[in-house]
């Protein structure tokens, strides 16, 4: 019967509510290397999505650490604006080697302002958001293309 209740739901209906963080995986691909997967748990995060005001608020242990506004682009993309602080919880920098700092300096610029995610999975219980991008990074005097594949996994 629960299926009947959501039969006419659209993306905005499914997005509404409080989502519990599960995991974020950042897959970093560098030229001539298969890549490094750096997953980390986000179980301490709550994502309160207010679809009436199109806002998203990230809470960690009772403290709001990030606030954004979003716009749905059709039914399978979401553009999030105000992502200046997103990088702070999107990457587990403790497990990221300091040597990759140039990459993250570039990512901070990338995250500032607006980011468009693909909605890979969305139902009553699960939400998977994804984006990938190529970040040009200057390293040892040359320009290196670093590809980032970023996946956020949320559950209710």
């Amino acid at each position, binding site marked *: 019967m629960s299926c009947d209740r959501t039969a006419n739901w659209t993306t905005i209906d499914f997005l509404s509510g409080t989502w519990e963080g599960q995991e974020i995986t950042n897959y970093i691909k560098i030229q001539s290397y298969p890549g*490094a997967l750096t997953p*980390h748990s986000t179980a301490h995060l709550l994502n309160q999505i207010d679809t009436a005001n199109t806002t998203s608020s990230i809470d960690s242990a009772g403290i709001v650490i990030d606030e954004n506004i979003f716009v749905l682009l059709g039914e399978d993309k979401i553009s999030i604006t105000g992502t200046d602080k997103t990088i702070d919880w999107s990457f587990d920098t403790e497990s990221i080697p300091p040597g990759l700092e140039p990459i993250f300096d570039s990512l901070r610029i990338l995250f500032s302002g607006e980011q468009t995610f693909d909605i890979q999975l969305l139902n009553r219980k699960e939400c998977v958001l994804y984006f990938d991008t190529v970040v040009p990074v200057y390293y040892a005097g040359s320009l290196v293309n670093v590809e980032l594949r970023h996946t956020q996994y949320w559950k209710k």
Partner: protein
Amino acid sequence: MCVGLILSSCFAIHPELQNAKSVNKGAHSYSIGVYGGANVLVETYGVAGVHNYGLTDKVDWSTDGSFSVQASSLKRVFQGFGVNQYNLSTGPKFSMLNDEFAFRLPATITFSAEELFLSASPTLLWDVIDEKTTLFLRYNRLYERNAIEGYSGDLLLGFNYFLPLRSNQIMLSIQSNGIGLYGGIGLTL
């Protein structure tokens, strides 16, 4: 060093499911196995198999393949959050010194994240303790160096222990690249 840690943790970590002894000319041998392991960043789960064909009594043509998935846990693998990697190595295997030592020199193709990587994987195998244990050392040398870190390959050290079950056909295999520890169980056919 830290960059090296993150960049050298994800390539071609699979077991060597054979010993140093070659098969007889014209004969075949097969082994299959499952394995898993982890480094500080991710866990890896996979299946592997190897086939040897005796070109002579001392030289085999040895081919091994593996499929593995990297993810934060086995649960995440089944949820589809993993990164797949396929490896296929093929080349000659030379047994020597009364079949106690062997040297493999395969070429390896790795497919991961929609890209192909070529490498050479020279491998030493040494049978000890009445062929109950095989020590192996494999260096997977990438054809092309990594642009950022200068990464060019992994050195893998491991051993197989043939259990006294089913005529020594079941083996435990443990290996490490110095960053992660991986193990599995295999069956020779």
